[in-house]
């Protein structure tokens, strides 16, 4: 049923300034890349990717607005609602060698993949600075190229800037990306140039979450981020609105 199920918060751990991971007392059998709608009564309802699926699932998020501020203040034992999981998840059929490009908490929807299959993956993981590389510990021994905008850790560049070198140095079946829209747009452009299959996880203003209201439909094919996505292939995103505009609550075009 598309109705919030109310559960207890098990933990809401501070990862870095403005970033927390909330752990829920639920069992959400989702595939990697799917999302849930979280509900806080009197505050609102918003979509969040799961950074851990299954029993006691987790969501890593940064504070952006009213909803995430309220989420940030939740403590162990507090109640929160969720519905879902929704969306399509990453499609890895027949993909053996995978490169990931993620910025900031954009690595969240990729973490279930990384934790289940470390060997197949090469990860490029960037953030503004060393402190904001919040998944560093969990990545453990995976093959990771770190980048920071300020050079405080790893390569001194954006995550997308390291992709060219990785693709030149090995053969990959697909590139998966999630993070700031500008970064994803660059990743898609690089992949298109290299004729490399690519999937990107998009974010748009969502209302119903079940593919009916049309709020999160993207141009130019009218694909719904909540139902047809949130993960789209490079072909689906050709000449799309990505990197150009996104729509707000009214439906007006705004900068992404």
């Amino acid at each position, binding site marked *: *049923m*598309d*109705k*919030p199920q*109310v559960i207890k918060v098990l933990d809401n751990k501070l990862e870095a300034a403005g970033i927390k991971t909330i752990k829920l007392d639920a069992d959400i059998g989702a595939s990697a890349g799917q999302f849930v*709608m979280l*509900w806080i*009564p*009197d505050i*609102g*309802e*918003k979509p969040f990717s799961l950074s851990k699926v299954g029993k006691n699932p987790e969501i890593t998020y940064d504070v952006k607005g009213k909803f995430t501020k309220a989420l940030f203040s939740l403590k162990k034992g507090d*109640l929160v*609602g969720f519905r879902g999981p929704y969306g399509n998840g990453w499609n890895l059929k027949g993909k053996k060698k995978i490169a990931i490009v993620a910025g900031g908490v954009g690595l969240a929807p990729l973490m279930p993949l990384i934790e289940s299959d470390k060997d197949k993956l090469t990860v490029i993981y960037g953030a503004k600075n060393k402190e904001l590389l919040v998944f560093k510990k969990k990545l453990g021994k995976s093959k990771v190229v770190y980048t920071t905008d300020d050079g405080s850790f790893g390569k001194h560049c954006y995550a997308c800037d390291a992709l060219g070198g990785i693709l030149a140095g090995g053969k990959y079946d697909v590139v998966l990306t999630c993070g700031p829209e500008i970064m994803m747009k660059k990743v898609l452009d690089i992949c298109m140039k290299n004729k490399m299959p690519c999937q990107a996880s998009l974010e748009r203003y*969502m*209302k*119903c*979450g*079940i*593919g*009916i*209201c*049309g*709020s999160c*439909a*993207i*141009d*130019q*094919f*009218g*694909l*719904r981020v909540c139902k047809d996505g949130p993960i789209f292939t490079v072909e689906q995103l050709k000449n799309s609105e990505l990197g150009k505009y996104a*729509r*707000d*609550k*009214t*439906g*007006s075009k705004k900068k992404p």
Partner: protein
Amino acid sequence: MLSIKLCGVRLENPTIIASGILGVTAASLARVARAGAGAVTKKSIGLKPREGHDNPVMVEVTGGYLNAIGLPTVGVEDTLQELKEYKRLSKVPVIASFYGATADDFREVAKRLDGKADLLEANISCPNVRSEFGLSFSASCEDAREVVKGIKGIAKTPLLVKLSPNVPDIGEIARAVEKAGADGITAINTVGPGMVIDLKTRKPVLANKTGGMSGPAVKPIMVRCVYDIYEAVKIPIVGVGGITTGEDAAEAIMAGACAVGIGTGIAYRGIEIFNLVKKELAVFMKKEGFKGIDEMVGIAHG
């Protein structure tokens, strides 16, 4: 076999995407048209930009959903661009749904939309904006008549008027809008409104607290409303409410509808629902010996 004429506009088949469903952007409507809809409806347009209600705006219940989206709109100016873009993308007729807080608003929006869509649909029956806009215009003959007269005095595009089922006598309202010049009637808007309370947090789930009911459970209410309206007026009727299969569509048509709106059904059967309903309707008609939709319209009467 499935083609119809609705207020002079030819539709290749009688399925229409209902207002408020996948109707925010031109690209989204064009996609629904590609999926097989006979016409598409641009989500209700207001005079000025409006955000609508906070999330959650939708919650599932037994037999359907409650929703309270709250009439978000980019406003009529930006919508004109979106309609232009839709016309570039698709040849399938488009209905522009619109609303106003006052009869003057309705007239103003209708004036700007005139000639920019194949049909207009005055939404005088949204159940989710009562606290701001007051009781809907479709709750009284006098209010409904005033709004429709105003629109007809200024806009030449054929006008559908969308009615609420939440009235004691929908036939009476239908007669009033027909007399005021409406070219057709869309019935029904959502039912109720209803409410869902979460037991653990002890709070209504919807941010607006209440929301209009749609989905399979409201279909018998739609069928009765269409039946009553057919008895009351001569103008064509678009049946909307809980239609999920071709046989549901046939039922609405037998009650008196010449076209059918589909909305919540997408939650159950996906965007493919248009092709599925068309196929199922054609199979039913063949089996029963109907050669065209016209032969079936209102056949349940008399």
